């Protein structure tokens, strides 16, 4: 029965995540101010007054920037994780189905190859070669999500292939692809949801890192990482312009991590067992 009582982690994580997702969604229809206009007369205004979180060095409202920046971060991270799942999961399923075969070897060694490189360095390489943009940031982060999901799925699937119901499905004449889709994948959903949440938070962090060094979304599209980078020399005269994008990154990543942990507590069968 314990699994029906959500843990504190889960609640805090869900609230933070929902909060930022909400901000991002609201920004599509409404922000307190525009984020592409420049209003030099009102620059570096402290929080309070007409601007809840103050204004930046160009007089843009920081709350609006953070809201639209949430959109950028979430979109980049979400699509990158999507790429990882769409490509990684079939690869992992195929490797598990042909366990020990040539296909398995090829897929897993290719995964090892990608894993062998520090992800952020390669992401910087990719964006440096193909030019800095949000799309290239997505591709760069997405590529590194592929082996994560492929490995996870292969490990989980190998265990499931030994199960009796899989055996009976084989006896019934179902092919490997069909078994993978109908019997293996649904039983891996829990694992994928948990890992997806964790990868999502890493994606947000990676996007902020790339933007910070100028390789993510380009101006005037607001991005938390670039807001931080641009506030660097102003930190001693207007600390608020660094504080809020920084807080946004910290809270979103924290929220997603807590959410991921909380979901694992509920969904992961192994943890469920030990808890009982």
């Amino acid at each position, binding site marked *: 029965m314990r699994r029906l009582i959500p843990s504190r982690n889960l609640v805090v994580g869900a609230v933070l995540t929902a909060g930022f997702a909400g901000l991002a969604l609201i920004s599509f229809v409404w922000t307190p101010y525009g984020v*592409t*206009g*420049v209003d*030099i007369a009102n*620059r570096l205004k402290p929080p309070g007054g007409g601007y809840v979180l103050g204004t930046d*060095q*160009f*007089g843009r409202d920081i709350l609006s920037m953070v809201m639209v920046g949430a959109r950028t971060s979430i979109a980049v991270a979400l699509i990158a994780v999507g790429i990882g799942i769409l490509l990684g999961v079939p690869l992992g399923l195929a490797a598990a189905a042909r366990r020990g075969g040539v296909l398995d070897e090829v897929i897993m060694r290719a995964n090892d190859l990608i894993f062998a490189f520090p992800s952020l360095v390669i992401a910087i390489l990719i964006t440096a070669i193909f*030019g*800095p943009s949000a799309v290239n940031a997505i591709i760069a982060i997405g590529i590194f999500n592929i082996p994560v999901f492929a490995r996870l799925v292969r490990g989980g699937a190998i265990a499931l292939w030994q199960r009796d119901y899989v055996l009976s499905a084989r006896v019934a004449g179902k092919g490997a692809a069909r078994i993978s889709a109908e019997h293996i994948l649904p039983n891996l959903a829990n694992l994928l949801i948990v890992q997806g949440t964790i990868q999502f938070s890493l994606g947000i962090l990676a996007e902020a890192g790339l933007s910070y060094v*100028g390789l993510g979304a*380009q*101006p*005037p599209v607001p991005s938390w990482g670039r807001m931080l980078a641009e506030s*660097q*020399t*102003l*930190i*001693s*005269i207007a600390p608020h312009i660094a504080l809020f994008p920084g807080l946004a990154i910290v809270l979103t990543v924290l929220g997603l991590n807590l959410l991921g942990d909380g979901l694992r507590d509920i969904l992961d069968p192994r943890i469920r067992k030990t808890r009982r």
Partner: protein
Amino acid sequence: MIPHSPTKRSLIGALLLSGLALTAYAEDEVQQQTTVTPAPAPEVDPITVTVGLQLEPPHLDPTSAAAGAIDQVLYANVFEGLTRFGPDGSIRPALARSWTISEDGLSYTFTLAADVTFHDGTAMDANDVVFSLNRARAEDSVNAQKALFEDIASVWAMGETQVRVTLSKPNGNFLFNLAWGDAVIVAPESIENIKTNPVGTGPFMFSDWVQGDQIELVKYAEYWGAPAQLDIATFKFISDPTAAFAAMMAEDIDAFSGFPAPENLPQFEADPRFTVLVGSTEGETILSTNNKMPPFDNVKVREALAHAIDRQAIIDGAMFGYGTPIGTHFAPHNPDYVDLTANSTYDPELARTLLSEAGFPDGFTTTLKLPPPSYARRGGEIIAAQLRAVGIETEITNLEWAQWLEEVFRGKDYGLTIVSHTEPFDIGIYARPDYYFQYDNPVFQEKMATLNSEADPEARSALLAELQTIISEDYVNGYLFQLAALSVANVNLIGLWENAPTQATDLTSVYWDE
């Protein structure tokens, strides 16, 4: 190790007992490095200064590269030319103490300072001048400013200290040209290793270069002119504005020439330990426009650009108020400057009308490629917002300097870019159709040629006014502001240049007032 240990121990002991050991030790080192003849007062601490700079030179030969960072360290300090720039931009005698110009303006006879030696001890005489000028103008010369020397027909040594230069046509700018860092006098004996071991005639000699960190110069005791008032000058390279701010505040450096973060200057101003020098540079900061690329080949579109831009907002927003508005490509502190800012007043309504007349009622989309300095990156975001207000969408791309030089400057693959043209008196670039903004106007080119052969000051002023007006009314580029020279220094350090008539950190008359 063992024989050394007593010495070491005693040194540490002395160090613990008093601070004297350290100073005495440091002095010994200086003695070894600086003096050819023994210094008279060994009990005095060496007078040192540490100056922060943002950019490190790629190498140390000012006669073979356009990099201003080389002159920033070496100009006037290590290398000298026949003439030189003063702090106010005036042309002053340097190695040439006097000169006579023939009536037809074709022959210059220079009298050199006597008893001048290079830092390696060899004599500097007329032959070195002949060597330097011939090397700079030679067919295979790699001098970055070869055009400075193109009117020279011949260079003759007339004796130990007499040099005659004849020109193929009169050139009113010749003495100015010789003052550039690219025209300094070098020696055939030391030219081979100049990139790593520059040997000049200046009051400081090169001592050490720790790549990525600092360059150290020491006083040259045999200097022919007024001796330097500093014993050791260290240039530290700090590219990150935040680190520059911290180094200055911690007093790790005594001065920062060309401080990269104008937003921090009020904090220095409020601090009694520092003085802030705000002057003018030769840097015309412009919204460079690709004149050959549609729709910018239409003067109406360029005019619309000019009226869409609010200069003051850019100066305030990108430079925190430091900078002088300009309406043409000429330095406002120059006596021949004409204020043409009225040609391009901020008027978004007019800009929209002009765009409609040009056939772009709904505006258009173009590229805006930005090099690293904050005037470009910040200015770019502000300009993008201002252009968006009249319907022109810009795709901003932030580039590193190497990419910018490749794509924009050499490749001409851009619509708009922002850059500061820091060479002095560089309106001549508008007479070069192959220059990166690709402005091709025969009338301008003709007048520029007339100017170059005109020596009469009044006629020159009139021509310069015309030239400035032509490019302003042709709206060749968006003229934004003259880049301010911003330096921060210890309040007791006297004699640094306030203005920057050329890229230099002239330490020859800098001293500590204590």
